[in-house]
């Protein structure tokens, strides 16, 4: 039974932006298709049209020669099109089973059996009766996939599925997708990660600025050719020079423990490490293994024992983030719009939030707006933030620009240590490159970095030393040259 999906002349226009410009594509089951493009290229809009979330201005969609009327997500479901969104569409406080039964017409017992069969077949193991918020990102994604599979879909669309997954979880996902494809499900895989396209897919369609740039078979492409099509220019690849070995210790963490009252947080157990000047320490791990707690302890959002953190010969474990900044530490948290910046506030107001004493942003309790604006303009031009309007609300900046602004805000004080947590999460290749260059530059200026990241490639590229966090415990610290991504993967899974 073959499935043929045809997109014909689809156009979707938003005020000030053509998200899809006359896009036509054809897919056949038995193959895995990649839809490749940078953030904002229009991939997500296109698949949201396929799943009925967005209604196109023009164009038609055919499934097996039948024209589809996709006016709501229900229509897509009825026509056997399943979609796993980049941002999960799950109900955090409901149990896994409740999440699955909510859009199913089946009875409880029948559905349970069906889910068990699916889980056995694809080797998933998820407790159906715990709330979604207790699951890891990988497990959440499996729930989404199960939700699609229950309906025996003809088409399965995956929107940037690996952005929250670890190496292991990613390869598990790829195995499952290949299995689905063999069973006759048409798979459309949306991504901006070139490596994955090469690994997984049979055919690739590249989009740029709302337009379809090319459709080709993977065997005729390589990473460089795809990158060129996606970005529209050649990307220079950056490499880190080996750091000058210095023995000048900057920060030392000794017997650091953190026990949380919140059952959804991870406890940190006996953390010990030190970072020298000019060095980048990478901390790898599957998300939810204590990274965010470690970041908070290091940044001072969680106060610990005074002696547990020694920075520049001062004990600072009991200081707040503000006080730590005065000692020349800087922080770039994971969630750009929740923790690093306030979305409804203007760019320059967000810059003022990082209020260190010498900045003179405030005079006797009054805001020194000119000073802040001047400072913001400097950040915008120094760090290549693509806007000239510092009155713009931060929520309207793209992820890449916002991250540049945040890193810029932190670095303009020329701190001795920058602690960042998933700094390139969800960014496109251009922005990632820029952030990586910036981080390398910091090390070259003999400043240090603690890089907590779930992206192993990034860690291997930027770190001098690497450790892995698993269930709140750090592995021994290894030299980056001796580490491979396989080895990291094994440690991340908790093995020795």
């Amino acid at each position: 039974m073959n499935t043929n999906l045809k997109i014909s002349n689809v156009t979707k226009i938003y005020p000030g932006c053509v998200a899809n410009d006359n896009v036509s594509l054809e897919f056949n089951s038995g193959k895995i298709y990649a839809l490749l493009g940078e953030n904002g290229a229009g991939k997500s809009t296109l698949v949201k049209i396929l799943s009925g979330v967005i209604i196109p201005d023009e164009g038609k969609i055919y499934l097996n020669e039948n024209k589809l009327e996709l006016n709501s997500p229900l229509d897509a479901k009825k026509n056997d099109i399943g979609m796993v969104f980049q941002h999960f569409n799950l109900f955090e406080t409901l149990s896994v089973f409740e999440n699955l039964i909510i859009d199913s017409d089946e009875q409880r017992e029948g559905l349970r059996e069906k889910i068990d069969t699916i889980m056995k077949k694809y080797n998933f193991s998820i407790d159906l009766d715990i709330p979604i918020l207790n699951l890891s990102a990988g497990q959440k994604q499996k729930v989404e996939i199960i939700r699609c599979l229950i309906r025996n879909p003809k088409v399965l669309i995956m929107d940037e599925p690996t952005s929250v997954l670890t190496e292991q979880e990613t390869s598990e996902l790829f195995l499952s997708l290949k299995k689905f494809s063999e069973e006759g499900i048409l798979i459309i895989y949306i991504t901006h990660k070139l490596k994955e396209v090469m690994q997984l897919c049979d055919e690739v369609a590249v989009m740029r600025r709302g337009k379809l740039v090319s459709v080709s078979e993977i065997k005729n492409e390589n990473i460089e050719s795809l990158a060129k099509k996606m970005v529209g220019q050649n990307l220079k690849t950056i490499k880190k020079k080996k750091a000058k070995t210095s023995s000048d210790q900057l920060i030392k963490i000794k017997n650091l423990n953190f026990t949380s009252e919140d059952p959804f947080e991870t406890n940190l157990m006996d953390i010990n490490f030190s970072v020298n000047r000019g060095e980048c320490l990478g901390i790898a791990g599957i998300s939810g293994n204590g990274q965010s707690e470690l970041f908070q302890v290091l940044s001072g959002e969680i106060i610990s024992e005074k002696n547990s953190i020694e920075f520049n010969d001062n004990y600072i474990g009991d200081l707040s983030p503000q006080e730590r900044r005065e000692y020349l530490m800087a922080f770039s948290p994971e969630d750009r719009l929740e923790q690093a910046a306030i979305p409804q506030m203007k760019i320059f107001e967000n810059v003022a939030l990082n209020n260190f004493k010498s900045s003179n942003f405030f005079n006797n309790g009054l805001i020194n707006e000119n000073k802040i604006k001047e400072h913001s303009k400097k950040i915008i031009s120094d760090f290549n933030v693509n806007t000239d309007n510092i009155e713009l609300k931060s929520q309207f900046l793209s992820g890449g620009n916002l991250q540049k602004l945040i890193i810029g805000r932190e670095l303009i004080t020329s701190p001795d240590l920058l602690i960042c947590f998933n700094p390139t999460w969800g960014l496109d290749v251009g922005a990632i490159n820029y952030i990586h260059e910036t981080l390398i530059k910091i090390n070259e200026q003999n400043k240090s970095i603690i890089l907590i990241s779930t992206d192993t490639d990034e860690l291997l590229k930027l770190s001098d030393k690497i450790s892995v966090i698993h269930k709140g415990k750090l592995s021994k610290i290894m030299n980056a040259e001796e580490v491979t991504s396989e080895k990291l993967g094994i440690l991340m899974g908790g093995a020795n």
Partner: protein
Amino acid sequence: MIIDINFIGLIIASIMASAVPLILASCGELITERSGVLNLGVEGMMIIGAISGFALMTVTGSLIIAIFGAMLAGVLISTIFAFLTQTLITNHVATGLALTIFGIGISAMIGKNFVGIPGKEFPVFFEGLKDTIPLLGPILFGHSIVFYFAFALPFITSYFLKKTKIGLIVRAVGDSPESASNQGINVRLVRYACILYGGAMSGLAGAYLSMIYTPQWIENMTGGRGWIALALVVFSTWNPIKILIGAMIFGGLTIIQFHMQAIGVRIPVQFLTALPYIVTIIVLVVISRDSRKIRLSTPSSLGKSFHKDN
């Protein structure tokens, strides 16, 4: 001093009776809030229910028309709220406050002609059985249909939310309207229904006050009970059974402090009057401390407008 055991039964029954309007309004508001809508207009909807019930009873003479009319009045006024917050995407808090002010004003206007008119007697059930069992007799028997309904409602609400598909959909919408919408659930429809249901229950709570509890119309007769009902929903962490406990404590202390004032206990009156509020909140906070359960039962999207973009 010999304490008559039936007298204790009567006191408990009177405590339960005073808890009825709180339970009704809270359980209604709980459903509204579980769908992610914060309706601060409970007090306004209650008072509209109170005057509508009393006026319909006086004019038509039919208790059934009056009770259902009061619920319908609650539905109608909450429709205004639903239209504003769900269709015109206004702010929940401001709209709810406006609704209360509107309700109090319009009820006073309509009520002008009904001041001083005596109410009607409302039929009660099992009156004859009251004296058959000591203590329990007065508690269990001799109450109106609304009374029995109110004490069943928390359990019905709990069952509805936990066990039924529609209850699940209500919780899902309150958890994440975006996800629900992407799953093909009509968020606006669900929220309209929940708001209207909350209106009906508030209307019934008001009618209970003006037709059964104190059968007459007095201006502003809800006296802040709508606000207490709102507080109960939050402090019970959206759990209907805890609403029942909270309403009983509040009702109980209100009655007991009256008696204490009457006996002349040497505690400042102001403190006694404040006591029910303080104790209810403390007790509910203590029994709802579990941060995990709070996280699981708090509707994440509470008070946030949802606008579907295409």
